[in-house]
């Protein structure tokens, strides 16, 4: 196929919900009451919410039309760096929707919920095997929630050892949420600069690590797509001062079956099931952010935990050193079912997943390095980071090129992140993309680079093939209109 993917089909307009409908319609099959009406004490009775009344047809058309304004992984390549927008297998959705799981109440007696408990138990063990860690809690509901769990583990550990600490080391190549998670636990973030090779130097860590520092938060591979190759030495430095090593496992898709996180000195690692383990992002959640820990930190994991005895599974609260609870129940179970299904569908092929994710990223890096400025010229992991340095002469920015990619039928990469690379273009193709799709993406990027020289105005105007053009974000923030 030589034509670009992007086109303009027939896209329908659709108003807001409350601009449609007529009083008296209903899209819900309300049953007749078979009991007497029982008026509630008038002092508690309100007027009821001012919702529009719509028929089922109106609702179905409304959301079907809205859905066509969205781009998803099922629409096309979504190379959003650090987000691991891989294919979301359809069988996972089917499994999570099986009635026995989807309709199960979380407070069922244990003997009536053995299947769900078994699933939790087995998923914990599968994730422990994949990461190399020794115990897992599935309770955190998202990546940032997993980070918070990691920091609460640090806090609980240091309290338990009678040595509360006040600081934490956060490299400039770490994920953006890390400092906010640390400050929730009262830790002051101490920024650590990466070196000319884009990774941490043991000397820099040693200079900052002291006995008032709780530990370090490392993203590995880091947000430049580079493996922190001094990881083990850095962990030794941190441990020698009584600190702990937290690894942000958002980028685990690069190293399944390749790196054992325990062996490189990690004490706690969070995973994003919605990245590495193929559960859908849903337009921004729900995710799931399990924490995987070493034996050292296991006593502090959140409760309840699933335990197995005499072939029966049960939830146990009997962990006196636990830091407490993060979720009303056990976390995002429905998401866990999908990740479990994914792992069982791949088995040992998970290593192949990482190999192909890394192959795809390196292939893109090699095919685009002559047109985009490469931030760090070394082998990358699952993502590669370029910048707009060479296009600056034509007054074309990363944003312009990203928006132009939309016209060619691709979701743009992550842009302006990581912050250490000005004008960053961070591309993570994932293993899901075939060579033909990568080639098509590469061709689109090269076409855009040529346009940047010849007709930069086309890029400034992009996107032109979407239903809405560039949106005014400044006015939106200055005069917020947050409800209709």
């Amino acid at each position: 196929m030589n034509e670009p993917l992007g086109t303009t089909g027939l896209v329908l307009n659709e108003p807001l919900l409350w601009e449609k409908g007529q009083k008296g319609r209903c899209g819900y099959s309300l049953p007749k009451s078979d009991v007497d009406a029982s008026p509630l004490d008038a002092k508690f009775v309100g007027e009821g919410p001012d919702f529009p009344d719509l028929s089922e047809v109106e609702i179905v058309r409304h959301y079907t039309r809205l859905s066509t304004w969205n781009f998803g992984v099922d629409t096309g390549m979504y190379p959003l760096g650090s987000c691991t927008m891989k294919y979301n297998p359809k069988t996972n959705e089917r499994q999570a929707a099986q009635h026995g799981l989807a309709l199960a109440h979380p407070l069922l007696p244990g003997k009536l919920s053995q299947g769900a408990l078994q699933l939790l138990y087995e998923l914990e063990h599968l994730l422990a095997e994949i990461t190399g860690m020794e115990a897992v809690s599935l309770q955190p509901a998202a990546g940032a929630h997993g980070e918070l769990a990691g920091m609460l583990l640090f806090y609980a550990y240091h309290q338990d050892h009678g040595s509360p600490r006040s600081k934490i080391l956060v490299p400039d190549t770490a994920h953006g949420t890390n400092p906010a998670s640390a400050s929730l636990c009262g830790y002051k973030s101490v920024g650590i600069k990466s070196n000319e090779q884009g990774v941490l130097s043991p000397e820099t860590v040693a200079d900052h690590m002291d006995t008032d520092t709780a530990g370090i938060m490392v993203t590995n591979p880091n947000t430049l797509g580079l493996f922190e190759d001094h990881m083990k030495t850095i962990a030794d430095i941190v441990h020698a001062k009584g600190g702990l090593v937290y690894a942000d496992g958002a980028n685990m898709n690069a190293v399944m079956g390749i790196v054992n996180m325990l062996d490189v000195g990690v004490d706690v690692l969070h995973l994003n099931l919605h990245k590495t383990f193929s559960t859908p992002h849903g337009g921004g959640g729900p995710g799931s952010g399990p924490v995987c820990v070493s034996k050292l930190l296991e006593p502090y994991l959140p409760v309840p935990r699933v335990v197995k005895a005499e072939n029966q599974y049960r939830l146990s609260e009997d962990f006196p050193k636990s830091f407490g609870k993060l979720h009303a129940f056990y976390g995002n179970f429905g998401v866990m079912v999908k990740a479990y299904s994914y792992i069982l569908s791949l088995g040992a092929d998970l290593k192949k997943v990482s190999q192909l994710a890394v192959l795809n990223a390196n292939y893109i890096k090699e095919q685009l390095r002559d047109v985009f400025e490469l931030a760090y010229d070394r082998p990358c992991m699952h993502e590669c980071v370029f910048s707009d340095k060479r296009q600056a002469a034509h007054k074309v920015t990363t944003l312009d090129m990203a928006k132009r990619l939309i016209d060619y039928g691709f979701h743009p990469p992550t842009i302006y992140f990581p912050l250490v690379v000005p004008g960053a273009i961070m591309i993570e193709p994932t293993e899901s993309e075939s060579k033909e799709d990568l080639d098509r993406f590469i061709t689109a990027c090269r076409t855009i680079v040529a346009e940047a020289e010849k007709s930069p105005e086309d890029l400034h105007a992009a996107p032109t093939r979407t239903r809405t053009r560039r949106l005014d974000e400044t006015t939106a923030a200055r005069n917020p209109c947050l409800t209709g």
Partner: protein
Amino acid sequence: MRYLPHTHEDIAAMLEVVGVKNLDELFQSLPADCRRQDDLNLPEAMTEWELDNHIHGLADTMATPPAYQVYLGAGSYEHYVPASVSYLLSRSEFVTSYTPYQPEISQGTLQAIFEYQTLTARLLGMEVANASIYDGASALAEAMLMSTRIARRKRIAVSALIHPAYRRVVKTYFEPTGYEVIELPYTDAGQTDLSSLASLDDLAAVAIQSPNFFGCIEDLATIKNTIEDEKTLMVVCFTEALAYGLLKSPGSQGAAIACGEGQSMGLPRSFGGPYLGMFASKMKYVRNMPGRLVGETKDLDGKRGFVLTLATREQHIRREKATSNICTNNSLCALGAAMFMASLGGTGIRQLAQLNHDKAEYLKQKMIAAGFKVPFSNPTFNEFVVGFPENFKKTYDRLIDQKIIAGLPLDTFYPELANHYLMCVTETKNREDLDSLVAEVSS
């Protein structure tokens, strides 16, 4: 493997471009001490139909309707979900997209979330609602942290009739802050006891759940009047959002923040998650609010559109000074809730809420007539507490064998309430079910 498109030829051609001989060599830059020595020890990959069977085997062990009659609520409710909602929610353009950072190709999610924020604000009678938080418990914890930022105080009071798990989550979030969390006891009638409030200075917030964990409706207007200190915020929390189809909204009763669980709005119980943290406040507090917000704007041609906005509160811009570390919302759950609220409409939500109230009231009166004790006299919504005779555990277990789960035993959460059970009745139960439940517990 069907998810991996690479042929041997593709791999060979790509390796050549990259300049390495095989896939292992891609990792040659990793130092030896960082390489995993052993192979992944995982079960052999299943085919799609093997997986169907395996998961079915697990699912089959679970006690779910219609085989079981489940009278459990306590933060997770059985409501009928229209096929249209489940079907629309499975549109892969919604399911497989990321957070809408590129608004031009995310208008579907953005408009839908703007609509969700609006419907949520209207449901709760508040001026602004965010794009959602993880669940009811984390929403309450975030609300209490928000109140300490607004009031610049380090002490909060929390009703003992807030869901016990929510209180534990608040405690976990507050532990490292060193801030004080005070628990307010409950009255014999089943409402929060505010008599100690006058002696508590410098409270950032008082948190009340309504309907509370015992199902009783709290008198929010009176509570608001009892809180004399103007700087103390009233935070209203809930586990059953449907109640606000019938009850006076938290906003109309003076809540500064209203937050809680939105699972009732069309989400499956799914063994406890993913659910929906609804979160709303007065507009003057919006810059202290955690989580994502969608706002209306215009595009270059003046056409209406929507974007993520007020991001300067958020972690990726403000880093350690952010209002929260929260990064995602529970977007797809929020979308499902919006679809559900739109399906009900103003007329439908009123009727459905009334129906829930009436059915629960029917069972409550039948239980009283059968001689069981309903210890808390305050009006309830779709849950209430029943005190059974001392040997009731045997009956409870017998009913399980008959595939009836007769409520939630309360003694784990409130040791003083031995033999007391929290019963939940929604529109899914019919009169015969309720009559036969009363007959069974009486026999």
